[in-house]
């Protein structure tokens, strides 16, 4: 654990900084909206009630749904995260401020009126100071809520401590998970304590502190924006998991090596297929790696059966993406991340297994367990059985996470696999060749808008360096390094490119 912290200290601090940055901005904006709104509505109880209800309804929308809705409107990154957080934080701040301001002993308001005070005097010397404890407690609730919810910003590339939680879950890395979870919890506790102390300070000082923070963050944002404008920034995102993260790091290194004026921003672990595809179409993401099989089965509309021939499958995917969405699909890499059947390597030797046809003869001596989806889908086990005439001794379904271990521990003899899964290497398993071409082909290639490709021929050229590179075994090895050995995707990607002379050291 300590080793992990030492190795990643710099990045953890950056993530912590991002987390604080997002949280503070969201909190300040929420305060700046909710408190004045409560003040304006002091004498309009119907308006106050309405705002309370609207804020309450927003509160009930799941945060993921809000993030999803915001992507086509404002893109990805910190902006939608901040908007979503602000929407959530308004309700506790508004409700507390409003009830604090409207539940002041009426006799005190009467006294203030009777002495002929100005509206400003009444607000700043009477109403706000008396409502302050309630307002502060609303802010406290909101800030704790924000710090917790900010972990979701990582889902849409907003950064922050949530990145560690996500990475931890995806790569099964407990260290990252603990770092993300513990730090965000500590941050929430700390913020809670600081605000409690602020509650005892006078209103004037609080206004000064908030004002200073606003100016500081405003300055920071403007300077970073100004600095960033000098170079072209392109955004590359990847799906959940280690393999897409390795690929996008390769893209980044290749592009930046050949285009010194281009700054590549990476959004690893960005989300599922449809999420990314939408982000690409709305221009929030410029490039992401996609598989031919996924294109044919989920993204484009086609009545044809998906081809098992990699070249045909790619050409068809490319044509349909261009025709239906105006997207350019660059040349694919060599490896295929297909469905396959895996056996222990010693069995492969013992039964002389290298292809699925080989398996047919000995299948009646073997037990198999499959992922429930694979077991049921026609392009899974049922189709396989028909094509190869395989008849196992017994077949059952099993949780995908458990099946590799079960195979390694000799509880079963055959299971389904993806050809680049690192566990194949970890447990010394062999995949059998699909010699009758039954499984659809999954080849990875960069996907982008055609308009982007035309405007940036240099970037297309850089990315095409990966065409027909990276064998299945190499990809499997890199996945093993990242997901099992917990090495950094950026480092593993960089090593590969240097080793194969695609970039210079």
């Amino acid at each position, binding site marked *: 654990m300590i080793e992990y912290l030492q190795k990643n200290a710099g990045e953890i601090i950056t993530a912590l900084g991002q987390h604080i940055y997002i949280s503070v901005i969201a909190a300040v904006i929420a305060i700046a909206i909710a408190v004045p709104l409560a003040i304006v509505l002091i004498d309009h109880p119907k308006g106050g009630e309405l705002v309370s209800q609207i804020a309450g309804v927003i509160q009930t929308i799941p945060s993921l749904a809000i993030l999803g809705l915001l992507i086509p409107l404002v893109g990805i990154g910190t902006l939608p995260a901040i908007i979503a957080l602000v929407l959530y934080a308004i309700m506790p701040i508004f409700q507390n401020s409003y009830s604090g301001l409207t539940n002041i002993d009426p006799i005190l308001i009467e*006294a203030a009126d*009777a*002495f*002929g005070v100005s509206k400003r005097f009444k607000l700043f*010397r*009477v109403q706000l100071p008396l409502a302050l404890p309630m307002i502060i407690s609303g802010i406290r609730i909101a800030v704790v809520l924000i710090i917790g919810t900010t972990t979701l910003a990582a889902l849409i590339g907003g950064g922050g401590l949530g990145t560690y939680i996500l990475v931890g879950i995806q790569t099964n890395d407990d260290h990252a998970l603990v770092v993300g979870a513990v730090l965000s919890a500590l941050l929430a506790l700390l913020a809670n304590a600081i605000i409690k102390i602020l509650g005892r300070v006078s209103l004037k000082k609080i206004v000064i502190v908030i004002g200073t923070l606003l100016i500081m963050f405003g300055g920071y944002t403007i300077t970073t924006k100004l600095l960033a404008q000098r170079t072209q920034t392109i955004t590359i995102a990847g799906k959940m998991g280690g393999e897409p993260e390795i690929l996008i790091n390769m893209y980044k290194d290749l592009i930046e090596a050949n285009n010194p004026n281009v700054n590549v921003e990476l959004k690893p672990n960005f989300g599922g297929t449809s999420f990314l595809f939408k982000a690409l179409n709305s221009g929030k993401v410029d490039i992401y790696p996609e598989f031919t099989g996924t294109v044919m089965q989920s993204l484009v509309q086609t009545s044809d059966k998906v081809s098992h021939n990699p070249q045909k499958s790619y050409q068809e995917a490319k044509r349909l993406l261009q025709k239906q969405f105006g997207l350019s699909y660059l040349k694919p890499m060599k490896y295929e991340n297909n469905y396959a059947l895996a056996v222990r390597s010693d069995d492969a030797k013992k039964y002389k297994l290298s292809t699925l046809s080989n398996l047919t003869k000995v299948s009646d001596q073997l037990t198999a367990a499959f992922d429930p989806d694979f077991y049921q889908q026609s392009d899974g086990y049922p189709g396989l059985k028909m094509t190869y005439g395989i008849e196992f001794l017994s077949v059952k379904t099993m949780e995908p996470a458990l099946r590799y271990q079960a195979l390694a521990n000799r509880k079963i003899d055959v299971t389904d696999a993806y050809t680049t899964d690192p566990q194949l290497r970890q447990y010394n398993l062999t995949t059998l060749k699909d010699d009758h071409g039954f499984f659809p082909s999954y080849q990875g290639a960069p996907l982008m808008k055609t308009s982007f490709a035309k405007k940036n021929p240099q970037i297309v050229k850089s990315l095409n360096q990966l065409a027909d590179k990276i064998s299945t075994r190499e990809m499997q090895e890199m996945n093993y390094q990242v997901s099992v050995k917990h090495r950094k995707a950026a480092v593993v990607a960089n090593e590969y490119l240097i080793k194969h002379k695609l970039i210079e050291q």
Partner: protein
Amino acid sequence: MIEFKNVSKEYEQGIALGNLNLKIEAGELFVLVGPSGSGKTTLLKMINGLNKPTHGEILIAGQNIIKSDINELRHNIGYVLQSGALFPNMTVEQNAAIQLDLLGWNDEKKYQRISELMTRVGLDPTTFLQRMPSELSGGEAQRVGIVRALAGQPNIVLMDEPFSALDPISRVQLQELVMELHREIETTFVFVTHDMQEALKLADRLAVLHHGELQQVGRPQEILAHPANQYVKNFFDNDTSVAIFLQQVIDAGFGVRQTNEVAIPMGDDQTIFDWSREINDHPDQLIVVDNIILRSEDLVNYMATLRVGVIK
């Protein structure tokens, strides 16, 4: 001088004040008295514009208040509320100086004025000025409330049942204080109370209100001697006739221990009115209450100690 002309106040639920005419002279201590719901507080709050009449007009020194700037008007009116109503977030000094802030006094003048008044109401400035309202007793808070109302040397001071929440001892002390202050500074005081005793004790003149109607206006003695109607008569009757028991006469120090004189025994729950009837029938008749002998002169002497208004 404050003048109400054909003033009425209507709410959706009904009429709070009905077509009321009233003149309060400059410099007098004027009391509005009546049971709750009689409209007395509504009337008081019309003077500083906290309440607006539905019909009619209110003139202060001949000027219709609707036509003057409401905040300017309020800067010249002191206001004492129930239970002090000090702002809990400000010190005693800040509370007391609110109107001075609004009038633009400088810090030194403010401090002098507040210290002087604090001393006058019996609160040591060095001890009390920096305290928070939560550190004051009810009586102290109300004294600060009075300081706050008087600080700006207003032409009019309004008091809305200021002593109703106080204990009897503090109440009496503060009633005395209000009367003294009124004698010292020639300002119009308008005082609202539901306590008829308090009204009779404080008022130069008083107005009896019932169901939003003015029943009678006059000096305490006039009203007691010539109640305008049965309501006014009952309002004061009730309170006086049941109030004074023979025990109270003995508690006031009258009477001697039983000797061997002949006396008619009476209970300590009988009133001085029962005793008067006895004397009326048999002058010089002694009575004995719980072993204490009372003579006819004791009744006269006792009555002489009472304030105006307690008896008819």
